[in-house]
């Protein structure tokens, strides 16, 4: 995967308004924790040096305890936690306001082991590479198709589990353009670690251009290899799982391939998307993503190459 253009992956890179709000709570907690750790560590260091056994030590005074002191540090600890508790409540309610009658802008569906992205208001279905407009508060619906996954981009802040039969919602308002990376964050079986997320935040005008392109039916192939590739694609079992709009391929088991040529990676961020990589993926996907549901199709290398040539025309 080519990640050289991506932004630094970190929870401290606030790419959304929501991440920024969590960041505030995170810093508050960090400061409190460091202070407490330093106090405990400091007392411990002092005790180790000061009260180490020395020759001729008398038997220490047997101090059984002090109720006032006990109550004092119980209440003290409680007060620190009360501060944290109030901050937590405030941040929670500001991040996830009531949904009201809002419809989701993006539906994220976790599959074993790839991501489907639907834009119901724009009529777009795509896979593995998410595009978002900058500066708009977007409602996400997160679903699981098979097992539990979790959608998380560190720079976006909150993660949300994708649970079958239990749709979840969350808001992201992207505030920085750029490419942000993530990985599925709930263990989901064989390829959990290879179920990567690539999100691109674009200024609104460029996002609209992208969306316009995605909504188009791709043109027919014109080169001989690609034409042959399309025939092979339609004649083989490819169409049992994949769909390409404007053709007879309409299955929704695997990723939608309508504009696969416009993507930068294959296999949910596992390898770069170019003609040789796509051809070798089609020949044997198990080599790149062991255990994934796309089998080795036992195609002749020349046929795999022609199918790849066709798919690369789908921009």
């Amino acid at each position: 995967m080519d990640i050289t253009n991506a932004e630094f992956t970190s929870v401290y890179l606030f790419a959304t308004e929501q991440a920024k709000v969590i960041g505030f709570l995170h810093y508050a907690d960090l400061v409190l924790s460091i202070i407490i750790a330093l106090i405990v560590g400091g007392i411990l260091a002092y005790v180790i040096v000061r009260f180490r056994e020395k020759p001729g030590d008398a038997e220490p005074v047997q101090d059984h305890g002090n109720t006032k002191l006990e109550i004092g540090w119980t209440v003290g600890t409680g007060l620190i936690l009360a501060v944290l508790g109030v901050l937590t409540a405030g941040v929670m309610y500001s991040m996830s306001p009531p949904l009201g009658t809002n419809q989701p802008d993006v539906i994220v569906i976790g599959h074993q082991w790839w991501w489907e992205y639907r834009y119901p208001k724009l009529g777009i279905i795509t896979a593995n590479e998410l595009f978002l407009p900058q500066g708009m508060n977007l409602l996400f619906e997160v679903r699981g198709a098979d097992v539990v996954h979790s959608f998380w981009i560190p720079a976006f802040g909150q993660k949300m589990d994708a649970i079958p039969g239990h749709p979840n919602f969350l808001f992201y308002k992207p505030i920085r353009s750029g490419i942000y990376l993530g990985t599925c964050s709930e263990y989901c079986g064989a390829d959990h670690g290879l179920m990567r997320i690539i999100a691109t935040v674009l200024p609104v005008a460029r996002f609209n251009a992208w969306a316009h392109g995605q909504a188009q039916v791709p043109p027919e192939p014109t080169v001989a290899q690609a034409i042959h590739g399309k025939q092979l694609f339609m004649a083989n079992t490819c169409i049992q799982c994949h769909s390409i709009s404007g053709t007879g391929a309409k299955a929704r088991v695997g990723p939608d391939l309508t504009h696969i040529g416009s993507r930068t990676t294959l296999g949910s961020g596992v390898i770069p998307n170019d003609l040789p990589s796509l051809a070798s993926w089609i020949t044997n996907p198990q080599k790149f993503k062991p255990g994934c549901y796309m089998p080795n199709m036992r195609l002749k290398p020349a046929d795999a190459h022609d199918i790849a040539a066709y798919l690369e025309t789908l921009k």
Partner: protein
Amino acid sequence: MTELVFTKQKNINTLNDIHEYHGLWSWVTSVDHKQIGIMYIGTGLIFLLIAALLALVIRIQLMVPMNHFVSQSAYNQIFTMHGTTMVFFMGMPILLGMTVYLEPLMIGARDMAFPRLNAFAYWIFLFGALLLYFSFMGGGAPSAGWFAYPPLTEKAFLFDPGTTYWALSLLLVGVGSVATAINIIVTAFTLRAPGMSMNRIPLFLWMMVIDSFLIIFALPGLNAALVMILFDRLLHTHFFAPNFGGSALLWQHLFWFFGHPEVYILIMPGWGAVSEVIPVFCRKVIYGAGFMAASTVAIGFLSMGVWVHHMFATGLDNTTLYVFAFTSMLIAIPTGVKVWNWLATMWGGSIRFTTAMLFATAFVLQFTIGGLTGVAFAAVPIDWQLTDTYFVVAHFHYVLLGGLVFALISGFYYWYPKVTGRMLSETIGKWHFWLSVVGFNGTFFVLHILGLLGMPRRVWTYPRGMHGWAELNMFSSICSFILVFSFFLFAYNLVYSFFKGKIAGPNPWSAWTLEWATTSPPPPENFDSLPAVNSRRPLWDLTHEPDERVAGIGGQPA
């Protein structure tokens, strides 16, 4: 100190001097709580070494990006077995074993209340554990992680029998745990020596009695869930299959209803061990014994009401989440009280830094760090961000390895002379300690940073070019070799000292609780007579005037 030994058989110096313990048959057929305790602990230690080696494979695999040291499917089996082994086959048997060994000695009893049940519990545990390891040969080890979330564990997604072995094995082990927990409670309530009122039993046992109640109340959640997943897999029911009207979240509730008390079940014996070790090596009575006991009771109750903090990212409504955030923060208060009391016990003492005390000291700081990162997870939005990342891996290793395991090791250095009659080598012990501290903190501290840099847990590998990931993983992996080496050094010390260690005598540490009032190792009958028990420190009372006597639990002189 011979005049303080309350048994007629005073010529016992090592286990070899007890002819009742000679021969394998005497161990296999034993209903003696000491033999069963030793077998429990020994089995737990063997599983500790196995799980440490599994962890080493994980660290080697993550050393460099896009590594192929082990295959993806082997990796998934290995981290599942590492977690399951550490929780169920290392933590549980060692804590139960320590308790069944020490409880009758601490309260001046001859044996546990139900000796045969005790033996049954050990053997069914062993059988359950071996059943799970048999799965490596029987079609594949489980590969769904130690909390095994369905629908992944449904047959449609994991067809191999690993998950079935896992559920059957944990059911058997769970039966054993509940049996022993009942035994521990009944023994503590019915077999105490004259004068040994509930507020005079040692804090270790106080905590283990509460621990046993937690086992009894928490395990049914797991057992119910295990039966349901077995039915789903074997009888084609659909408890956890959403496509057929089941619920994926049901498992998470049931599992964590068990799973969160379980982490307190694991840590409580650690608290108990350091609450015995710190006073003895500081030559001071435990500070605020009543608050120590009461805070454990509070934690016991609260721990049953915090399980949803493992599910903050499942999209439950804010009100539900906040209730559980509140209880989770509340539990930090009694936990904090314990830390302050340990520090107050050390304050003004005359501290002997034996290996046992060194481990107890490191425990206090490492457990505090683990506790503080734990509070971060109670703050729901931080949990939304960091759950299921390497930050959480760092957190629970600070609590369970830097906390629990360090405390147990402290307890081993403290009680090993009582169990075997010989001292553990302090020279090897000091090496063991420093290698453990460096190895542990080196391996796990950087994992906090990896979590903040967005590395999710349980990933087989990660892409090249992620800022900082390769360097931090490499550093962690190198330190993990030091850590695993330190465990093998410990094992060597246990074996070496068993044959060559210095003869300990009945009470090498000048400790104060009843287990030190008999020979090391104790004879099968433990005691022939007992000292008067007028306080929580009967052996202290024998050498001190009454007005110096220790207060009982509650702060009042008992």
